[in-house]
């Protein structure tokens, strides 16, 4: 009995994974060439940066906040990395830490504003979003193409994993980030504090938890992840551009929420967000393989598939929740 029972907190996650598999099987049956390891791996190759931002965003949302600045931070990071590499001709060993600082510092700043002045995260990070994108335009409105050995290496190295399939270095980075995040979320004090704050911030304060410090840290981490994603994005694009990752914040939030994290905070899993990203990716892949949809039907199809996922997920979760209540006694 006990073994068969699924922890109700994990239900959304399990439902999501099941839905992802269903979708992938559906694609494989319907399209030739879909069922190949590479198509699956491409979900990671093409979404490595999204996975990394989603991980950062998961912490933010778990704490009951939101970070709208991530897309712009990616753009700003790519811009900084590109201009430092190409215009200032700095070595990558300087460029990378500086670029990573961009989001980290911005995130730290936003966290401080949110904590010390008790401002709403939505609005602070919205300002952060405007600021970061604005700053990337200030650096240059034009795209800066990167041509450096290091960046080329990071961009084009393929790590073969048998059967002719490959992944990129960025995928490895993303997976390391995911593992680290899972550890932090479940095996560190900080991680548990994040959940507590998301559950009830007042209580967390009264329980004597370091709420302020944790909150600042959360936005710093999210900023760092956005910057790291920005670097991955730069490897992916080999360019810096102010319009990069436009609207990515919504994709990220969607991925996190689809992955089963509650927007009200306190409940969810890092791994769920990864699955959320994969789901968005698989929706896109299916649409490309379909290959006959006009621009507007593309949008409608994305909406419809999203709807399908979310409603199915809800149905599965509520169904088994009611079943579970009766089982557990």
């Amino acid at each position: 009995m006990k073994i068969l029972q699924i922890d109700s907190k994990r239900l959304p996650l399990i439902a999501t994974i099941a839905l992802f598999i269903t979708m992938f099987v559906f694609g494989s049956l319907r399209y030739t060439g879909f069922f190949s390891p590479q198509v699956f791996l491409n979900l990671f190759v093409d979404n490595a940066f999204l996975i990394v931002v989603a991980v950062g965003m998961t912490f933010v949302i778990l704490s009951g906040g939101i970070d709208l600045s991530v897309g712009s931070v990616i753009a700003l990071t790519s811009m900084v990395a590109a201009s430092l590499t190409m215009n200032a001709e700095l070595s990558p060993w300087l460029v990378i830490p500086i670029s990573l600082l961009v989001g980290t510092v911005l995130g730290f700043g936003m966290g401080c504003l949110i904590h010390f002045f008790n401002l709403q995260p939505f609005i602070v990070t919205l300002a952060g979003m405007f600021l970061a994108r604005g700053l990337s335009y200030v650096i240059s409105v034009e795209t800066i193409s990167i041509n450096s050995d290091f960046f080329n290496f990071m961009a084009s190295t393929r790590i073969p994993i048998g059967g002719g399939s490959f992944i990129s270095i960025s995928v490895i980075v993303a997976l390391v980030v995911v593992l680290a995040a899972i550890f932090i979320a479940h095996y560190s004090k900080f991680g548990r504090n994040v959940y507590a704050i998301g559950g009830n911030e007042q209580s967390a304060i009264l329980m004597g938890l370091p709420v302020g410090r944790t909150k600042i840290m959360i936005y710093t981490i999210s900023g760092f992840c956005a910057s790291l994603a920005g670097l991955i994005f730069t490897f992916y694009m080999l360019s810096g551009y102010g319009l990069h990752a436009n609207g990515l914040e919504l994709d990220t939030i969607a991925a996190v929420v689809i992955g089963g994290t509650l927007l009200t905070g306190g409940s969810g899993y890092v791994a769920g967000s990864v699955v959320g990203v994969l789901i968005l990716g698989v929706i896109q892949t299916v649409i490309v393989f379909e290959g006959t949809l006009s621009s507007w039907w593309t949008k409608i199809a994305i909406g419809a598939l999203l709807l399908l996922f979310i409603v199915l997920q809800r149905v599965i979760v509520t169904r088994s929740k009611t079943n579970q209540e009766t089982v557990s006694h």
Partner: protein
Amino acid sequence: MMKSKLFWPLIVLLIILLINLIFDSSFFNIEVRNGRFTGSLVDILNRGAPLLLVSIGMTLVIATKGVDLGVGSVIAMAGAVGAMAVSGASGDGLTPLFLAIALVLGVSVLTGVWNGVLVSRIGVQPIVATLILMVAGRGIAQLITDGQIMTVYYDPFKFIGGGYLLMLPFSIFIVAAVLAIAGFLTRKTALGLFIESVGTNPEASRLSGLNSKNIILMVYMFSGLCAGIAGLILSSNVASADGNNAGLWYELDAILAVVIGGTSLNGGRFYLMGTVIGALIIQSLTTTIYSIGIAPEINLVVKAIVVLIVCLLQSPEFRKRLFGGLSVKKSEKKSEGVTIS
């Protein structure tokens, strides 16, 4: 309570307007031209009408602890539907106009029903529920217009967003009417109380016998309706429907307006007048950026700074630090880090 919520946003609005005065001494002048009032202030109201409408709807949604990301797409859809309805019409007969209006209002309320059902009946989180329409709605709008920018040649249609009544832009009257209705419904009936109650503590509200599901549904319907009217104004104003671009990013501006106005994204108490001021701040900022010749590259930086200033001014903690030296005791007493409920 109410007063202090409105005070700082009002100050910021005034400052923005005053900055304009430096660049253009006739900024506050309102003159009669071609039998109409013209002047920057009238323009700001006129231009801001769609944002005002959407923000009013958004306020109620946010008060229930929700959010409606679909408004931008609803604007596009409403414009497309309206333009399509009058596409065959010509001359001055008013029947097609009323038909179009009825159709648009119907469609936009339907979008609200869609969002509301997803949120209240199926229990989808508002941000994702409305994200669906945000993505798909634009597709539908483009489907209706076949990806083209549909130009309207039917003159009465242009009245909604471009016409004048009593020497003032007609859109201002629409906003006033919607605001009055929203104000009436929420302050002269119990709807406002119910919305705030559901937004603050849904479970306690349910146990007190409120029909939270229907209240939430209603709120999304109203938001859809507001967005629909805004879409009608926008498309009528340029006499065309642009499925792809109409209403782009309106959802963010509307949320911003609501938050600047003092309503919390955590639901509960809402301030319609605050939202109005918030929307006016955003609109006057935009107009100011255009008219004082700020380089487009730094538009966003300016916007970021203004947003931050408004928020900081509203934060008691910040004011305490800023004016700390002046009146230590008074401000210290007022601000409490934590309120326990």
